[in-house]
């Protein structure tokens, strides 16, 4: 197997059992030989115990005992499969319970969102919800799979109507790349293999599309942002004076000799070396983990950000953001929360809630401003010290943050900076 240049692609699937989501995942895993015999025997046994005809592939995606007993998915589950071209990570999110919270979580790291539409039903409320979250989280690619084509006699006309329906509302969203594929997950049409039944469709089947999507530009390579995670001072022979700043490049490209500014202090220097255990690099790009040394002895620590002097993020204590509330306890304006933004930790409060968004209709609600679990709102945040931010649209790492409740230590909200 050739592995050297194979990339990693993360995709998320959202939907309920009725859409055939589990069947689709089961199909991808099964046809790419990621399901083992003992796992298949396990679920065959459980299917039989439950009195099902045949093997229910959905059982494979349910990990917890409660999920198997109740036939529901509770939490995001991660699945893996590999083809000769790529390694894939699926964030499989439940369609019903706490769908927003889970979908937002699964979407946060995805390159691709797969949205399933039941061809018999067309675009429904859930479809709009999924598309909205995919666009809110700025998933770079959206693939709309019109499923159960076998049940509408592989009709090109109905398929085209569904595309029109979808584009009517998706034009209101900010989505860069939307594709459509007619499939039948149950029979495997256009999933891994090209469908003989859908002979009017000439583009690639789903797996082939996932294998060939251009994802190298999904990460911002323009704005160099290096959040410092920790300082390495070995104090051992050969490295007595070594002082390295360890982190993972969030975006952009850095090279030794680059003029850099350390934020928020504003001290400037040049990059002396970019080190890993294997070698010193002549060039580093996101998302590499590495250690940077500087030519000047300046004060740098965790929470600081090293950036190119000529291209700096905004340092501010106040900003507008979309906020998704994730906790059972409602948000309380003017309460202090801990904010985690890259490696920076500060205190923050929600200064004001401007409006909430109904993710089924995309309407703004300006009357009811109570933020409860699964709500999405536009808010103003104020922090005790400056954060170095970019717009989420330009940078998924320096544009995102979470809020933590200091009384429970739970993660209560996720934010996408505007």
């Amino acid at each position, binding site marked *: 197997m050739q*592995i*050297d*240049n*194979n*990339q*990693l692609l993360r995709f998320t699937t959202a939907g309920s059992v009725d859409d055939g989501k589990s069947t689709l995942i089961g199909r991808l895993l099964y046809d790419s030989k990621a399901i*083992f*015999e*003992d*796992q298949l025997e*396990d679920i065959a046994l*459980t299917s039989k115990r439950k009195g099902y005809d045949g093997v229910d592939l959905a059982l494979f995606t349910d*990990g*917890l*005992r*409660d999920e198997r007993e109740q036939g529901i998915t*509770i*939490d*995001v*589950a*991660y*699945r893996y499969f*590999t083809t000769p071209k*790529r*390694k894939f990570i699926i964030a499989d999110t439940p369609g019903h319970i706490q769908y927003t*919270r*889970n979908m937002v*979580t699964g979407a*946060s790291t995805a390159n691709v969102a797969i949205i399933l539409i039941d061809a018999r039903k067309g675009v429904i409320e859930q479809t709009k919800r999924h598309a909205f979250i995919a666009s809110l989280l700025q998933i770079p690619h959206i693939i709309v799979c019109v499923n159960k084509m076998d049940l509408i006699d592989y009709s090109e006309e109905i398929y085209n109507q569904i595309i029109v329906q979808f584009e009517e509302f998706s034009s209101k969203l900010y989505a860069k790349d939307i594709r459509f594929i007619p499939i039948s997950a149950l029979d495997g049409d256009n999933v891994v293999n090209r469908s003989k039944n859908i002979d009017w469709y000439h583009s690639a089947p789903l797996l082939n599309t996932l294998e060939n999507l251009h*994802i*190298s530009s999904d990460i911002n*390579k323009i704005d160099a942002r290096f959040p410092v*995670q*920790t300082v*390495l001072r*070995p104090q*051992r022979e050969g490295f007595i004076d*070594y002082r*390295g700043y*360890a*982190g*993972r490049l969030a975006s952009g*490209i850095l090279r030794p000799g680059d003029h850099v500014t350390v934020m928020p202090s504003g001290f400037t220097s040049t990059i002396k070396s970019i*080190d*890993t*255990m294997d070698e010193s690099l002549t060039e580093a790009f996101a*998302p*590499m*983990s590495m250690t940077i040394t500087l030519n000047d002895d300046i004060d740098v620590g*965790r929470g600081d950000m090293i950036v190119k002097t000529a291209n700096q993020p905004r340092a501010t204590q106040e900003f507008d953001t979309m906020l998704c509330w994730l906790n059972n306890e409602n948000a309380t304006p003017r309460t202090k929360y801990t904010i*985690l*933004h890259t*490696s920076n930790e500060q205190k923050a409060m929600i200064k004001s809630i401007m409006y909430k968004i109904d993710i089924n209709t995309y309407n703004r609600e300006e009357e009811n401003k109570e933020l409860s679990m699964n709500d999405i709102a536009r808010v103003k945040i104020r922090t005790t010290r400056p954060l170095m931010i970019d717009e989420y649209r330009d940078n*998924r*790492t320096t544009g*995102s943050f979470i809020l933590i409740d200091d009384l429970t*230590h*739970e*993660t209560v909200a*996720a934010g996408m900076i505007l």
Partner: protein
Amino acid sequence: MKKYYLNYLDELESEAIFILREVWAQFQNPVLLFSGGKDSILVAHLAQKAFYPSKIPFSFLHVDTGHNFPETIDFRDQLMNQLEVELIVGSVQKSIDQGRVSEERGKNATRNALQITTLLDTIEDHKIDCAIGGGRRDEEKSRAKERFFSHRDDFGQWDPKNQRPELWNILNGKHFEGEHFRAFPISNWTEMDVWNYLKRENIAIPSLYKAHQRDVVWRNESWIPVSKHLVLTEDESIQTKKIRFRTLGDITITGGIESDADTLEKIIAEVAALKQTERGNRSDDKRSDSAMEDRKRQGYF
């Protein structure tokens, strides 16, 4: 034009290094759980990379059931020397002697579940606030729901239905005194990824993973190695087979598979063709549909 992208192994490596550095930055007293198996050897290697040119800045913790493969212990001691890290050993035998736990009975008795108490006691005694493990989400169905930073309450228990959401790469390690975290830097690796990386990086692994001649007994659908802990039943007989192990657990419960794969290349080719999961030969997982979930809830690795 130059291609600015990482291949998948480099991306997994970078992610794991990021997580290990977050552990070090967010916790006071983390340890690396070391079993001597390939996954914990991999995590040790990644920790070396994460902190180079510094030494790995935390201790290793081995929960010793007393039912080890001798090869594993030799390998462990050698590696600790080489990495210059301190090793904490939590002894299951000591937990038994102190009356904290009692041995299971019967032919399939193991010390597997007893490790939970020893592990949690050691975590408490040493005031450990984060234990880094080599768990992977592809290993077992309940592990598919595991976070990178996984919260444990003050009884060391996991509540899978009430986990903190984990978004982007922002890790929340906040906890109260007495609680701790488990961190899983190789969550996103599969068995194949681990083998491909071990080969690429030329990382030494215990000889047990490679095919070798061994005295074994056919039990629970796999070849169980003969050891001083193994009690034969009347219908069982000792045979000599060329076998290797896909995972390493206690010598009493880890079954081998017949194999000629004595190099990493051959092992990778074999793993690619295998039709059973690697834990398929672990009788600890076969006890029930939710055997792993139940142990994990109580505080297992």
